[in-house]
């Protein structure tokens, strides 16, 4: 937030912009109804009877999306067969995969980052590998994962792992390497052992930097899970989006986008709270 701007003014402007957007959207969609067929008749024939009649745009109006949202949220956890599961179930699947992949990545990246940060030799030796692997799109790993793991769900967890590992690894290494010399000297003159120094001096000193890496990682993981699930299918919000595209339910896709955004925001805020907890100030 920018300092000096009262909260209510920013909030009022946000709400006004939202209202204007929704109103414009609603009008644009409804307006298409009077302006004759707005879509290709062949596509319109696929969409809905109303659209086929040339009476309505394929794009649902915000009011319809709102109604659909209420309907979906009225029973978010229903399970009626493999292709009809509530949106809550799908999001839970995605969250589970992100949590599993992210946790595994943290378990690998933080200790390894510690070692890299403490040892210039290890840093120099591992740097080429990290620099080559880091820019690879996590989805490029998918075929390899599917071939070796032979399980689509675990493969998507692996993809989450591989995309979350880099920011955490690099940030941990950087945070550990830049711990103030004077604090290390304090630990040395007090003859604090290796473990005590690592846990009570280096870890808290580097924690804010490590948390920044974790926050970047969770953001990337949540971006990637949608694409991964579109590829492997089965369950998850990414699969659900793709499924709704196949069903040509544009309203559901808009709802999915909204939900993905809200969950991503919640994940970021969650780690933001942890970051606040480990933050220190000179």
């Amino acid at each position, binding site marked *: 937030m920018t300092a000096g701007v009262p909260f209510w003014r920013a909030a009022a402007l946000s709400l006004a912009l939202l209202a204007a957007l929704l109103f414009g959207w609603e009008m644009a969609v409804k307006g298409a109804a009077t302006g004759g067929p707005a879509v290709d008749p062949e596509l319109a024939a696929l969409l809905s009877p109303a659209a086929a009649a040339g009476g309505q745009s394929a794009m649902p109006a915000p009011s319809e999306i709102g109604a659909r949202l209420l309907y979906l949220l009225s029973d978010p956890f229903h399970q009626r067969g493999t292709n009809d599961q509530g949106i809550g179930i799908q999001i839970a699947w995605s969250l589970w995969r992100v949590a599993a992949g992210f946790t595994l990545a943290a378990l690998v990246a933080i200790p390894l980052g510690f070692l890299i940060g403490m040892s210039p030799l290890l840093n120099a030796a591992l740097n080429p590998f990290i620099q080559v692997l880091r820019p690879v799109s996590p989805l490029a790993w998918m075929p390899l994962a599917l071939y070796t793991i032979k399980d689509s769900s675990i493969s998507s967890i692996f993809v989450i792992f591989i995309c979350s590992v880099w920011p955490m690894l690099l940030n941990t290494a950087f945070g550990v390497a830049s711990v*103030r010399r004077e604090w290390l000297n*304090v630990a*040395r*003159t*007090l003859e604090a052992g290796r473990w005590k120094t690592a846990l009570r001096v280096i870890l808290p000193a580097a*924690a804010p930097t490590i948390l920044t890496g974790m926050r970047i990682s969770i953001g990337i993981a949540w971006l990637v899970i949608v694409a991964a699930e579109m590829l492997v299918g089965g369950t998850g919000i990414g699969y659900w989006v793709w499924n709704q595209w196949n069903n040509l339910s544009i309203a559901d896709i808009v709802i999915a986008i909204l939900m993905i955004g809200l969950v991503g925001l919640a994940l970021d805020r969650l780690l933001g709270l942890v970051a606040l907890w480990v933050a*220190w*100030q000179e």
Partner: protein
Amino acid sequence: MTPPLPAAARYVSIEGIARRFPGLTVFEDVWFHIERGEFVCLVGHSGCGKTTILNILAGLDQPSEGAVVVDGREITGPSLDRAVIFQGHALMPWLSALENVAFAVSCRHPDWERGRVREAARAALSRVGLAQAAERKPAQLSGGMKQRVGIARALAVNPKLLLMDEPFSALDALTRGTLQEEVSRLVTEAGQTAFMITHGVDEAILLADRILLMTNGPEARVAEIVHNTLPRPRERANLHHMPGYHALRDHIMDFLITRSRTLAGKPPEGWDARRPPVVAPAAA
């Protein structure tokens, strides 16, 4: 001139240490000793390697030549027996004042349980007058209070030797004065052996039993040892009224202004690195 002490009586003995880089000798042939319960100050200009000497005594740095012997043993690294009060307090900002001191206590007494460690840390903070601020983080303390916590942390481990690297140089004059007296009191009460680096001539006169004067670097040396014969207790408020104070101060000032430069790199005839001349201007 005092006769040199037998080696056994020398609590801390610095024996011919040097710091050399390729093509550059920062200091060399530095010999001096610190007796048990003695307060020694090292005075010299920037660049003569004062901080390096202190770090070598702390075990944080190694000399290129020579050795340091403490209580009969050559030092090989840092030790709880040699506590350091750092120039920039070096408190850990994520710990409260109490936790900073408790960290040190828990290093000295790993077998103590939490409650006992905190009790000892609280006692150490009370000794520097910070009992009220124990729960505050360093960011919520003034510069002087932070340095007090640093002092409490160093003293909480009951070191054999207290090392101070210009501990008050970052403080304002008023706070510096208060802390100098505080350190003087604590060190005297505990019979603490101490070594301090300083720029402050009055600080050295207030605190030290002996003041080592170093020539400018490179190839810096201990040119002279000044015996501070002013009687204790000394108080900052009337230090400058003590007989001999001005002679002492003038002597050190003259050294810092001219002789530290003229003596640099070319020791006078008959000068012995192991026995630099000892003077006592205040006694004259």
